């Protein structure tokens, strides 16, 4: 039966990210002589993935709408550096939390308003942010230098606390994405913005909202980043936006977003990416040049796969064999 075959093919393409994950895990487990599966490695794996997922789960909403936010990395750095400085200079440790979240949110709102009201493509805008804001961060850091988590807030550096916080936040975000209006409308916008508009979805507001959410989660990611390292660093958030994008696309979300966007995909994708990066360093290729070129190659591969599957999807829409009892393709209106 043609339909069964088609359904099977569809399920197949959903399975690819899972298969990739298993293959990578097995490959690096063998390649590292089992070191990959040591409890220390697994803990590292989880902690690294957590940072990517927390910083990226807002981006997932943006990608679902068919846009992209490449400013999460610098947003993490900016909100982290300022939040820490406020906490240190005022001596009120807990201030770092609201400040990081507010700055993240502000940056996200700014992105959202520019994208939806000035019709700047999100890719271009967030690249501009990526470059421009990094300059500001570097300038601030040359003045205030590296700072450490204040003593009153040291509890956030325990991995137990971080994992618990991660579970709660990820659960909320998964709920928002899969079971609320925000998620449903975002996927609809990614599928076809005109249709969404014609039905009465407040498209502009939804765009601003998801960029704001992406910014808020970058602020959250800043807190996780500082909690993991113990303070700010010169390279905070560097390359993070790429890790986030790779996680989402490697997990099987199409660049055009829409129905292909699912929350589990960012988790799966970020685990796969982390396995690759961490596995390479365990295999003695910690030389950052090699691991960087592997990451670059992977990104290329992912983009290629996405484009090919997109083209297939399009072709399917136009010349799909009809289901029994349905009209032949040329007659589909």
């Amino acid at each position: 039966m043609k339909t069964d075959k088609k359904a099977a093919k569809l399920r197949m393409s959903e399975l690819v990210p899972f298969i990739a994950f298993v293959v990578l895990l097995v490959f690096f487990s063998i390649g590292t002589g089992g070191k990959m599966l040591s409890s220390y490695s697994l803990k590292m794996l989880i902690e690294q993935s957590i940072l990517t997922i927390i910083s990226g789960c807002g981006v997932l909403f943006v990608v679902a709408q068919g846009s992209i936010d490449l400013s999460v990395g610098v947003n993490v750095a900016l909100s982290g550096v300022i939040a820490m400085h406020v906490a240190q200079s005022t001596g009120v440790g807990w201030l770092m939390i609201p400040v990081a979240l507010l700055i993240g949110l502000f940056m996200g709102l700014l992105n959202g308003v520019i994208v939806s009201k000035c019709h700047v493509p999100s890719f271009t805008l967030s690249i501009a942010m990526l470059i421009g804001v990094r300059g500001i961060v570097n300038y601030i850091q040359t003045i205030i230098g590296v700072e450490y988590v204040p003593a009153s807030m040291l509890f956030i550096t325990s991995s137990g606390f971080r994992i618990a916080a991660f579970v709660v936040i990820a659960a909320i975000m998964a709920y928002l994405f899969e079971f609320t209006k925000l998620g449903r409308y975002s996927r609809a916008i990614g599928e076809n913005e005109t249709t969404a508009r014609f039905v009465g979805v407040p498209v502009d507001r939804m765009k601003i909202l998801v960029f704001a959410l992406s910014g808020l989660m970058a602020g959250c990611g800043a807190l996780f980043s500082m909690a993991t390292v113990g303070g700010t660093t010169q390279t905070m958030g560097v390359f993070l936006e790429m890790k986030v994008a790779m996680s989402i696309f490697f997990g099987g979300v199409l660049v055009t977003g829409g129905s292909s966007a699912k929350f589990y995909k960012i988790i799966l994708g970020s685990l796969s990416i982390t396995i690759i990066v961490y596995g390479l360093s365990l295999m003695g290729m910690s030389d950052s040049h090699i691991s960087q070129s592997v990451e670059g190659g992977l990104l290329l591969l992912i983009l290629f796969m996405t484009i090919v599957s997109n083209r297939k999807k399009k072709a399917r829409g136009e010349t799909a064999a009809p289901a029994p009892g349905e009209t032949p393709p040329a007659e589909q209106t």
Partner: protein
Amino acid sequence: MSGGTILEIHGLNKHFGPTYANRNIDFTLRRGEVRGLIGENGSGKSTLLSQIAGLYRPDSGEMLVNGGKYDPHSPLDANAHGISMVMQELGVIGSLPAGVNVFLGRTGQFAKGGIVDLREMNRAAAAVFEKWGLRMPPLNRLTENMIIEDRKMIELARALSIEPEILLLDEVTQSLSLNNRNSLYELIARYRDMDRSVIVITHDIEEMIRITDTITVLRDGQVVGEVVSAETDPDQIRMMMVGRQISGDYYRDDTTPDCDGETVLSVRDLSVPGELEDVSFDVHAGEILGFCGLSDAGIHSIGKAVYGLIRGSGTVHFLPTDVNITSAPQALANHIGYVPKDRDREALLIHASIRDNAVLPSVEELRAAAGLLPPGRVNSMAEGIRSRFSVKSTGIAQTTDALSGGNKQKINLGRWLAKDLRLLILDCPTRGVDVGVKAAIYALMKEAKKNGIAIILISDELTEVLGMADRLLVMKDGRVTKEIRRDEDFTEQSVIGVMI
């Protein structure tokens, strides 16, 4: 139509998977003959044309053109044999300007030293439009920003530019408004006079009888009969199509206008630059208010403006909640529904599931505590729409791109009727659906009317508006030029007189 045979088909078969799209087709076309192909959705008309046009290759059987073996490998190959086709679904490339689309795949003939001379090409394109009396869209504009009608004209020009001996037209008229339809009819008549042949597919039976010489009726992939257009009538053809007698009265049979219900919508001095000028009207509960006009008349803008998609000056006052509609989200929140004309580009999320499409306008209503859209409620709503409007499909998880036009439209309309509406705007609701689905849509409209829903019916099909509306507003150049009630001079002649 005295000429010799130009095209012969013997024992042609084509199947997709287990489904036979064409079975044992025998078909003969003479020079100077205008032939109609008719049948329900899925009866294999488009498949047959697509094989003649070189889009698909038959599984078995043979085709002869001018007595010689004909086995086209591609549309360009078919062109070389003097055959070209205008497809039902849009075959223009949106990111290219109109002029390039006319000579798609053949731009090489305008190349000078490797560079295509665009001016020369546009001149040639303009000549095609002029020769055949087609309305010409701006040739340098990208086609993606054009309305369906203009894009259709470009495809028509492309097909004509090779001066085909056989012209294949698949559901072209349904995208056109009255004046462009008339130019198409003239074109077909000229073709006949030039002793060339045309094969036409249209769902509009009256139109088909009017413009063709002979009609071939298809059912389930087989030819069930051939009739001479001058000797047949719509009922006979309808019966041949479905294989049983069906009642011809799918329109309303009464002549009493029903426009005394409470006013639901009151539009005053609505103007949108370049589209509408000082439009004022009221719609009442249980009333169907029809809009008709030529292609630039602005009837489609009425729907968009009332639903808040385009804004200008004037007021769109929705009385049940006493608000002025200024945006689409606001219209949605106020129990107004809108079925746009372009189903695939404006109404449906074509690659998404039936479920996602069905619940899209009802997301607010589905919301429970903490913003939750309970999966159970989402599924049962989608399932309800699928079964209530009998959408032929494998389940609510199926994507809509695999559905036929009629079934897509059932979802498109059904998802609004599943809501508690006060006003429903329908823009060409029966575009590209067969008689069966058409009848179902009219029945739904009558039911909605009985339930007190006010309906704005915008249509390029004059018979449809005359058949269904209580009152009719005729538009010209963005203005309402005449209002006719159902009990007045409610005939095609009187309306056309005002339209032009």
